[in-house]
């Protein structure tokens, strides 16, 4: 499932995928794969992304039943 919340949070900060990738120490393709729903990140990477985007885990990664 696509992670549109993460994409919109990133876009809201006017960040490119590459900028977010550099900030959390992964490749741009990894950020792209997370946003497209092709890769489930570890909790460590989720936290790093949340901190960078100023959001909580719930806001970006929790899916309501």
């Amino acid at each position, binding site marked *: 499932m696509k992670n549109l919340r993460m994409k919109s949070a990133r876009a809201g900060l006017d960040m490119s995928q590459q900028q977010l990738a550099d900030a959390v*120490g*992964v*490749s741009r*393709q*990894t950020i792209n*794969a997370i946003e497209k729903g092709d890769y489930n*990140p570890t909790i*460590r990477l989720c936290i790093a992304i949340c901190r960078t985007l100023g959001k909580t885990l719930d806001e970006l990664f929790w899916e309501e039943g």
Partner: protein
Amino acid sequence: MTYRAGLALGILLGVLAGIALVALLLKKKVLDMHFDERQELARGKAFQYGFLTLLAAAYAYGVSDVVLGRWCDVLTGVSICIALSVCVFAVACILKDAYLSLQERPRAVMTLFALLSAVNLGLGGLYAASGDLMQDGVLTFRAVNPIFGAATLVILVVYIVNHLLRDREEAE
């Protein structure tokens, strides 16, 4: 020094030179081994494919030697198996965007591959022209160069095609 001793020394020096080159490239950060978590997972899967290919290729080579008789030097046969498995590993990594690490510069690495490919295929061409590639219908150890040249060429072509297709996909 006998011919065989000279040959063994040459191969040993070649391997040592190769190790020294890789060590230098790692030190200069042209090659790097730091991957992110998604890349590590993808590379693990690619290692599985490469390993299974190596097993299958080694077995197929052994069977072919029994059935067809000696058709290549052992070093050549082993090199074919290794080249096949390395190609499978590399292609599986490339398709998952996990071949190059975070620090590696694609252009530098691919230039290195193009150079390796050209040198090895060029040597293969020279050996073929001088008739050293085959002796009495048996592929000699000199075929190792064109085999690894072909392997690096395959990796290079797959990387470039994948890169171009992905760029187009992302531009759409």
